């Protein structure tokens, strides 16, 4: 089947709804409109408005009521319309959803999936292009994942919905229209918490996730033309981190560049650099480098091409790593 990222998510949600009558979708404009990115297109028509629920315009309300439904045995999948609007729900997510299992000594589970279109590159206005993943990865009790391609989108959303822990599911919105071929009937190739080596290489490991994986792959292609061999690792899971897969790669290449759109300071790149330094210190040929967003609020659309890591900036970091 050839499909877009958005359509793959749609198919994944459809199969989750079919598989388990306790799965419900909740969010703003997800019903008749099918969501502003059409990820839930036709689902309300096919499953009814008690399973695909248009909620009032209130994010704390969406997550808080979904949490209540989860306490009653449901498996809600919430849609936050854009990254920048998750903050009203932040308290519910970090204080309630994330902590319930711990607080009740394992007696209560919150199998929620919170889908958040994230990241930039679509030329939008303020609050529509943010990368809040570090806040959530920093919160114990949450799993945080981000698929980078349609096939993973399809399997990972189903795995997330089936998981008994709350999952923050970051969808790179500038990839919604990317197309790929995959077999929906195939068994999942990887568990939800594993990273994947997308391209084998020998010189430098480049770790990326979500929207920047395609950027890293573009850099690898250009690098190859210039005689540099990059190994690209798609993180997929931001919490927990699959440090093993990254470390094995770095053991082979001896060099690491981490890429993300989120602002650099206190971002996931810092965590990965620290872990890899611990694990691979004596194999590293150069300091771990990060290519990330600047420490600024997400800029206006006309400036985002400077803020977002692009293949050039990745290759510049690779060059420095090789020169070290």
């Amino acid at each position, binding site marked *: 089947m050839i499909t877009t990222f958005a359509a793959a998510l749609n198919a994944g949600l459809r199969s989750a709804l079919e598989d388990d009558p306790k799965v419900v979708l909740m969010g703003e404009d997800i019903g008749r409109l099918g969501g502003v990115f059409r990820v839930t297109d036709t689902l309300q028509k096919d499953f009814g408005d008690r399973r695909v629920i248009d909620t*009032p315009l209130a994010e704390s309300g969406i997550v808080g009521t979904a949490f209540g439904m989860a306490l009653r045995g449901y498996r809600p999948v919430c849609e936050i319309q854009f990254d920048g609007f998750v903050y009203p729900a932040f308290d519910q997510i970090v204080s309630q959803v994330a902590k319930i299992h711990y607080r009740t000594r394992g007696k209560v589970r919150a199998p929620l999936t919170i889908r958040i279109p994230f990241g930039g590159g679509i030329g939008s206005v303020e609050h529509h292009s943010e990368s809040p993943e570090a806040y959530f990865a920093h919160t114990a009790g949450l799993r945080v994942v981000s698929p980078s391609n349609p096939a993973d989108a399809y399997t990972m959303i189903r795995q997330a919905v089936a998981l008994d822990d709350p999952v923050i599911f970051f969808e790179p919105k500038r990839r919604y229209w990317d197309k790929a071929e995959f077999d929906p009937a195939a068994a999942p190739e990887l568990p939800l918490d594993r990273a994947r080596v997308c391209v084998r290489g020998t010189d430098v490991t480049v770790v990326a996730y979500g929207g920047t994986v395609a950027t890293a792959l573009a850099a690898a292609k*250009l690098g190859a033309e210039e005689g540099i061999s990059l190994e690209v690792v798609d993180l997929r899971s931001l919490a927990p981190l699959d440090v093993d897969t990254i470390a094995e790669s770095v053991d082979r290449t001896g060099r690491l560049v981490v890429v993300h759109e989120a602002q650099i300071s206190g971002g996931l790149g810092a965590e990965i650099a620290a872990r890899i330094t611990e694990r691979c210190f004596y194999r590293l040929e150069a300091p771990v480098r990060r290519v990330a967003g*600047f420490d600024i609020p997400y*800029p*206006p659309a006309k400036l985002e091409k400077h803020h977002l890591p692009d293949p*050039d900036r990745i290759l510049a970091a690779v*060059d420095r790593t090789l020169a070290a």
Partner: protein
Amino acid sequence: MPGTTEYPVQLIQPDGRRVHNPEYQALVADIGPEELRRLYEDLVVTRRIDTEAVALARQGQLGLWAPCQGQEAAQVGSARALRPDDYVFGSYRESAVAYCRGVDPSAMTAMWRGVSHSSGDPAAVNMANPAIVVGAQGLHATGYAYAAQLDGAEIATVAYFGDGATSQGDIAEALTFASSWGAPVVFFCQNNHWAISEPVHLQSATPIAHRAVGYGIPAIRVDGNDVLAVLAVTRQAAARARGGGGPSFVEAITYRMGPHTTADDPTRYRTAAETEEWARRDPILRMRLLLEREGLLDADVQRRVDERADEVAHRMRTETITMADPEPSELFDHVYATPHRVLDEQRRDYTAYLADDPACALATAAPAAREEGVRS
């Protein structure tokens, strides 16, 4: 005012006839022929700004635009009830309010074009930056109003928001704070019937104005497509605020005739019949019928109004399409009001990177070849 949450105040009927309502007529007794024509001009000009901006968006000159077509009377009527020293907080759809406050239309388009996050200098027009996060401005307005009261300033602060916003905790909290503090804030809800695809009854099972009553805040419903009625009720609410009477709530019943934004497709969620029904209540048509009925609109006046609209729209278009892209170094401007070491370093590094620093020679050797391709 209690009791007026049931029936919307109206002074002009859809066919242009006046409605006999001594209480509210008295509030606009000073609006004679010249003032009526001026209100009409505001309505026509702001619709022209809107249609021109939609065209600019369709032509790729703006990334997006949130049209206010259909809501001009609610916006013009309320904004013209205010004094320059009053203060206004709005959402992303208040272009007619912004025009009345004196915001340059090309300052409005700058945000949608992606060259900046703001639309001009708030202090110059006493109107805050547009709030994109739905409902946030309700709290800001309440805080501003309270501070103004502490300062002894006799002004009104107005918070504009939509029907969908009333579901947000921020609006509920704003009503609590305003009521508890007696803050001189006017909550002005434009009930345009839709929050993107969600009909108003999904946000509220009762008239929205009833919410305010539960907070002890007097509320009124007004025909939002009737510029005179909106002017009257907003004058009343603003006067109460300035006079120390505390908060009030206006629900202007209106309709968003266009899409939510230029990226939206309203045919997915509402019927043509509904849209046509509201087209018959078009606020501009109504004002024109009133003026014609009262012999206040001749070809000359109409031509002057149209010329003014064309002129504003033309200037907005020219200034928008010639707007330069910001310089890359502007990325780092204004993040902090005081120097910040990390950011200074990032600015230096990135400038060097762009200026073909020898360390990045390889990177800049073939910049075109290293373009990623599709970006959206």
